[in-house]
């Protein structure tokens, strides 16, 4: 992955020279950007979408930006990989998994003149930004579609782990479904893995066997939606467009679109205007994109599009107050008319109507 060692050494020297003269935030003609992925680029999901963002940068600044990436980096052993990129003259380094948080912070402190960007984390530094996407906005839309499409009145969800990000997704999905179908039930299965296609598929089959007819997933492979397709049921793609795996079953997919953000951050480094920030983008900033609504009646499609527009314009928040917990008590509303960002990011309860318990 580390091509152009000579160039890397030269660029490294340039960084040192810049540091020596104290010139840090100056426009640059040529920069080098590195990426650390937690999975293989070919996972069809999370890492694949980050790599799409990397390619978008290369396309946007031909001749000005070179990129490198290291894939399948274990979270426990990521510091070495990140430091390797820092040493080989990268100006901007994206680390794209929650588990890279501490190693990224450590390396960022060691190399104050290099810019770092960490996905889905919450620790920042003067040269370390964080960014994440409001996938729950998309989940709410898929919930509305599921609530309309289900005939058995039972919708399903294959989750990876019972962590806040996944719980918030389940709640948003269920709230969406409940808003159009008050009697809808949800069944939830945790695969306890982000990525094991065969097991994810088995989890989906278990749900389908128990009467689920609309399936959502928060694991990385297309196996669950493919299982839905094989049984003549429907579902939603996750992270990337999974239509080719389930042309008849995919109603829509919630796509992680990092391209716009990555291009803007590369441009900021080129212009010398990069600052440490925290970005949490959703449908409005195109960080979350819905693929075309298919395989559903026109009225459902219209409803989905209207919901998408309402969320995009800020008129609708999936977690608008009052949000009621499983015990029937209202959750304290810490945001403006909706749950606050912190409440969503740390969500550890199911909403009323979900009969399952969060595994503790």
């Amino acid at each position, binding site marked *: 992955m580390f091509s152009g060692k000579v160039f890397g050494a030269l660029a490294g020297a340039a960084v040192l020279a810049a540091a020596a003269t104290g010139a840090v935030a100056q426009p640059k003609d040529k920069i080098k950007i590195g990426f650390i992925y937690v999975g293989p680029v070919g996972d*069809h999901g999370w890492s694949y979408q980050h790599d799409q963002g990397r390619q978008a940068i290369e396309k946007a600044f031909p001749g000005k930006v070179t990129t490198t990436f290291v894939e399948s980096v274990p979270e426990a052993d990521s510091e070495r990989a990140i430091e390797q990129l820092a040493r080989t003259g990268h100006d901007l380094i994206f680390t794209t998994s929650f588990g890279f948080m501490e190693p990224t912070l450590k390396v960022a402190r060691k190399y104050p003149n290099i810019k770092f960007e960490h996905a889905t984390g919450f620790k920042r530094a003067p040269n370390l930004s964080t960014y994440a996407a409001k996938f729950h906005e998309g989940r709410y839309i898929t919930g509305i579609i599921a609530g309309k499409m289900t005939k058995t009145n039972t919708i399903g969800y294959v989750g990876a782990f019972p962590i806040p990000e996944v719980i918030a997704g389940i709640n948003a999905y269920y709230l969406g479904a409940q808003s159009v179908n008050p009697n809808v039930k949800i069944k939830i299965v945790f695969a306890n893995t982000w990525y094991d296609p*065969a097991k994810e598929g088995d989890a989906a089959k278990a749900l389908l066997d128990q009467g689920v007819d609309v399936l959502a997933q928060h694991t990385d492979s297309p196996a669950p939606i493919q299982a839905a397709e094989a049984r003549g049921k429907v579902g939603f793609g996750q992270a990337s467009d999974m239509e080719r795996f389930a042309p008849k079953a995919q109603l829509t997919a919630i796509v992680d679109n990092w391209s716009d953000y990555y291009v803007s951050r590369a441009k900021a480094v080129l212009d010398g205007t990069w600052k440490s920030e925290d970005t949490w983008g959703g449908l409005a900033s195109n960080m979350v994109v819905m693929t075309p609504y298919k395989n559903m009646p026109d009225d459902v499609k219209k409803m989905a599009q209207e919901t998408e527009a309402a969320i995009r314009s800020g008129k609708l928040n999936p977690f608008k107050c009052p949000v009621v917990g499983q015990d029937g008590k209202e959750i304290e509303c810490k945001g403006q008319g909706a749950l606050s960002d912190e409440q969503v990011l740390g969500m550890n309860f199911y909403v009323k109507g979900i009969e399952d318990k969060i595994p503790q």
Partner: protein
Amino acid sequence: MTTFEAILLTIVTASTPLLIAAMGELVTERSGVLNLGVEGMMAMGAACSFAAAVTFDSTLLGVAAGIVAGALMAALFALLVLGFAANQTGSGLALTILGLGLSGLIGAPFVGARRDPIAPVDIPGLSDIPVVGRLLFEQDLFVYASIALTVLVALYLGRTRSGLMLRSIGENHTSANALGLPVLSTRFRAILFGGACAGLAGAYLALVYTRFWSPGMTAGRGWIALALVVFAAWRPGWVLVGAYIFGAATVLQLHAQAAQFGVPSQLLSAVPYLATILALLLLSLRHGRAIGTPGSLGVPFVPDR
């Protein structure tokens, strides 16, 4: 189809790749060679079978490619541990790492491709018997092949002269050599057989189980196959039982979650592994320690020593 039947069918699919891979490793280990590269050979089998199946649009060629890929990987392993008497543990681990990496490279152009499901064998009349009909008479060919494989391996090891030779070489290669038994060539064939089975298991995973290729999709099944061989005390029949217990535990815990039994999913996910440990414990309590371990397992053989 009732829920009960559906659950049983899923269990069969989950168990079959484990059974095939473990059966191959069992033969390798009975000859006295420990090949820890099952995961890597399986990944290569999955990648090559899928690549061939898509390229030639033929499941049969895909399966053949998977078997050949597994066997080629095994041949490389044999070169190291038989040809150079290299450390088997180290070579096996290296084979896993090589297989996972190489399979990613070979499979890269096929990421995103998909195959249609293989039609199961349907025996009219018999498949319509309630409950057991579909379970026994409407599976894909791999499932029947895996059962046949178990029977054949059991017969071979227990009832044939060649199988007896293989076992004695695994028990004590020095004595076997002194008796004039062909230690190295027997082990070479046993290693190849193990590789071919791992490749076939990988092919099953990519062509039947998931029907797409993605890097690292074996997700630890090679290691489970290795554990099953120990669990089964190196006996084919017990490998079959172990594979199905493991498959059943995996699938049932998912159903338990969907049915909202209220048991923590983390605990349920650990059930298959706990079941394996428990079975191991019970077996060793009944038979005393290290039951069935081939005497020369993992020891390099150098003829003139």
